[in-house]
């Protein structure tokens, strides 16, 4: 397994202009994804993780603006490249399995037709028969019966649609797949099947996967490294075992303690994380977590903590931890 950096996000700042104000969705984000790794971006709703995915592929909605930062991929800053080069990168180099992918299919076309459409759009000199052949191979790779290419989306179950989306994402042999909430809404056993599929595909195609989700146990099973986002900022990231066994940031610790587990005897403890996530239009000054933090100090209200390497490959943004 090589440790080359595949994607490097630096100082990313993204805002949305809405009628209610300017939403600071992503604030000074720094992380990198290596080749052949599964990188997890975890956080609750509204923390900005989906915005990160959209920023990488430059498919943000019209009311969004990247204010600052860079996203380096294979030597090029994706935020600066011209649109036709970006179009080539999309799907050929970086593809996306997005949230609610299960509803992303056009109900009046066969699934096969939609996949072929995507293939032919991104691989210029291919005729229909070759594209069909590729689609059949892809279906086999994702353990779907190739004859299902002729069926319509409503004949697919949730898990099958997700596999079809993954097949589409693989169509052009990308280096990086971004999967936004890939198993939300799926039953436990189907989820296990999809996770196993992603792992197998990662090994077979030697690609990297960026998984975005709120489901931390799911990320713990699949990812090599895991990053926690809160209110548009990265608060902690490390390799997955370290993060789950030795979390340092109070938010991470609180979050992990609220997660129900199957093993061991559990008594319902008192409230661990009080309050609600902050408004991103008017975030609290200093550390955005301080209003809910059990160990916040005066410094936390004034100064924003920087993501610092506490131990090798373990980064935390918290004043109490840093000193």
């Amino acid at each position, binding site marked *: 397994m090589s440790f080359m950096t595949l994607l490097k996000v630096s100082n990313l700042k993204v805002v949305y202009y809405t009628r209610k104000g300017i939403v600071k969705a992503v604030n000074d984000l720094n992380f990198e994804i290596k080749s052949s790794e599964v990188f997890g971006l975890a956080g609750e709703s509204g923390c900005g993780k989906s915005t990160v995915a959209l920023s990488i592929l430059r498919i943000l909605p019209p009311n969004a603006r990247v204010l600052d930062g860079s996203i380096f991929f294979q030597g090029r800053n994706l935020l600066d490249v011209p649109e036709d080069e970006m179009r080539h990168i999309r799907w050929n180099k970086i593809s996306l399995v997005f949230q609610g992918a299960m509803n992303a299919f056009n109900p009046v076309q066969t699934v096969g037709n939609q996949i072929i459409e995507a293939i032919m759009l991104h691989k210029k000199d291919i005729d229909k028969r070759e594209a069909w052949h590729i689609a059949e191979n892809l279906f086999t790779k994702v353990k779907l019966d190739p004859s299902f290419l002729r069926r319509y989306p409503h004949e697919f179950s949730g898990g099958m649609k997700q596999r079809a989306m993954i097949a589409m994402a693989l169509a052009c042999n990308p280096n990086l797949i971004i999967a936004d909430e890939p198993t939300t809404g799926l039953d436990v056993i189907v989820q296990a099947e999809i996770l196993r599929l992603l792992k197998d595909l990662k090994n077979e195609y030697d690609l990297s996967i960026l998984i975005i989700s709120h489901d931390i146990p799911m990320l713990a099973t699949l990812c090599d490294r895991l990053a926690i986002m809160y209110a548009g900022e990265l608060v902690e990231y490390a390799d997955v075992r370290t993060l789950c066994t030795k979390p340092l940031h109070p938010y991470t610790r609180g979050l992990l303690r609220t997660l129900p587990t199957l093993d061991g005897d559990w008594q319902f403890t008192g409230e661990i*994380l009080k309050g609600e*996530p902050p408004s991103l239009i008017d975030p609290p000054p200093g550390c955005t977590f301080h209003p809910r933090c059990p160990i916040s100090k005066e410094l936390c209200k004034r100064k924003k903590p920087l993501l610092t390497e506490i131990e090798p490959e373990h980064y935390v943004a918290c004043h109490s931890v840093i000193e």
Partner: protein
Amino acid sequence: MEDTIVEVRNLKVWFPMKTGLFSKFYVHAVDGVSFAIQEGEIFSVVGESGSGKTTLGKAILGLVKPIKGQIYYRKQDIWSIPRNRVKILRRNMQMIFQDPFGSLNPKMNVFDTIVEPLRVHKLVSSQAEAQERVYQMLEQVGLSPPKDYAEKYPHELSGGQRQRVAIAAALILNPEFIVADEPTSMLDVSIGSQILNLMMDLKDKYNITYLFITHDLSLARMISNRIAVMYCGKIMEIGPASEVILNAQSPYTIALTAAVPRINSENRELPILLKSGLPNMASPPPGCRLHPRCPLARDVCRQKEPELIEVRKGHYVACHAVTEGWSFEPLYTQIKHRHRKSR
């Protein structure tokens, strides 16, 4: 000895599906379910999509009419109660829904939503009395100070706040029994845990019995006294929470517990013990519902439905493999490391 508060006997809830001019199919949402809930316990029904658990909850509250079987509330058959007494019964049984926004009328503010049950049952006579009770309830559910929230409309509240309002509206009639249908699945983890904490506090304070409906096995393990595992309209296993999870007997429960991702597990491979497939409620398979997917299935599983048999104290399983004592080896070929208590 605690009293039985709710009892369900041979309950079948089928929904008609019109497919042809002359043929009529039914969706067997609940297909022969029996159990009893004791006063003061938290009883969870765990199942995946298509298991029938939500329909079960609605049937117990009398929202849908069963095609067969009975539902008893404190020994009274709820469908035999005279119409004029039904309303009084309703005061004792309430529900908390999965969608916090959908459970509130967008045109009514928080005060009106919470006071409504009192008005419907004519339990308050003056505005002052109503305000006192509503404000008290708002404090109870953590929406404090009450006057800041009373005038707000649902779209001005966050998900967690909406769910608190829904809980307040359910609790204001002082019910004994509450059905909670996935109350935290649409909320963030940190907010959801606050809501669960709230529900537990209120349980102790008001002596409420909960029927918890969830797909989250870990959650059920954490809060329940007893768990019933449902698949395709039937109960596969039922018993004390820790028993059912840590000493699962039914292949279905075993497969479910194996497939749940765990944070601190050494082994990151999630075993998949059942073949792919979905429960088909429109035309359920004959015999045991699980047989098309179960690696232990034999002829008898295709022919005869297994009964719920007690295997340990209070722990019942519906599975031929268990009652006949067949080897579970074919199920475990995929598990490398697992701690299991011996049967």
